[in-house]
């Protein structure tokens, strides 16, 4: 069982940073929606505020790592151009997708959307984290701010979901592979 260096980076980007971010979104939404709504009477301890602040900071770091590794590590491999007349496009995912009408849409719609929409996730969640860090439990007394924070978190989740979906589908049709092989387990 082995994995290539490029395959490993794709895994770190998608299943590591991106996947964890998507999982974390639901937790943040539940916390912001239930615990910090204006109608809630229960006291919010400093520990709970600190936990959510740390949670949101971790989400922000994950979101930025996901887009930065995507754009600056994996995307250059994805969009690499082969030598003219090269018959084997396996190492050139973008060209491989575009070479067939049944797969070209995964690039022209999927990747073209994913590469831009993904950045809405870190922009939105950075704002959410900064606002929560500033207001903390006071956010209960600012329903308008709370509503905006929840809306931006939802959009961030949606943007990351779109990017994740297309990333998985594109990698299924034209995986980013290459570089050295890393042996994981020796087969029988």
């Amino acid at each position, binding site marked *: 069982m082995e994995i290539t260096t490029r395959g490993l980076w794709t895994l770190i980007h998608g299943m590591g940073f991106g996947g964890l971010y998507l999982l974390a979104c639901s937790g943040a939404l539940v916390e912001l929606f239930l615990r910090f709504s204006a109608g809630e009477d229960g006291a919010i301890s400093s520990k709970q505020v600190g936990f959510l602040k740390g949670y949101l900071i971790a989400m922000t770091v994950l979101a930025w790592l996901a*887009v930065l590794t995507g*754009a*600056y590590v994996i*995307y*250059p491999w994805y*969009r690499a151009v082969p030598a003219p007349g090269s018959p084997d496009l396996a190492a050139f995912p973008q060209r491989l997708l575009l070479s067939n009408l049944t797969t070209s849409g995964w690039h*022209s*719609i999927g990747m*073209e*959307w994913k*590469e*831009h*929409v993904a*950045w*809405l996730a870190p*922009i*939105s969640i*950075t*704002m959410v984290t*900064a*606002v929560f860090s*500033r*207001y903390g439990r*006071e956010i209960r*007394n*600012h329903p*308008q*701010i709370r*509503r*905006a*924070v929840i*809306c*931006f978190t939802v*959009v961030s989740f*949606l*943007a990351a979901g779109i990017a994740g979906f297309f990333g998985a589908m594109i990698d299924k049709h034209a995986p980013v592979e290459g570089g050295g092989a890393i042996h994981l387990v020796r087969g029988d």
Partner: protein
Amino acid sequence: MANGSGGAAILAAGVGAFVLGVLAVAADKSLAVKSALVFYRPTGQLSGVTTTAILIWLITWGVLEWRWRHKTVALRRINLTALVLLGLSLLLTFPPVADLL
């Protein structure tokens, strides 16, 4: 606690997202814009589109924070503007919509 800081962060995020959408379309439509936005060749114009949008977002945030941090602002209007900008950004980054422009 005044709501100005919150308003500044919310509106700036909307502006940053919208600029990202506008630049993505501009780079797609104009060869001159496209080549001007190639900040890092292996990543192509995506490097310039995102770096420029992030810079504009952070500068907008800084300026608004500086002006509003001790003020109470009209958050309903600010939220609406920010969410419209965010929605437009989602639309502008969607290739079939960008192709209609």
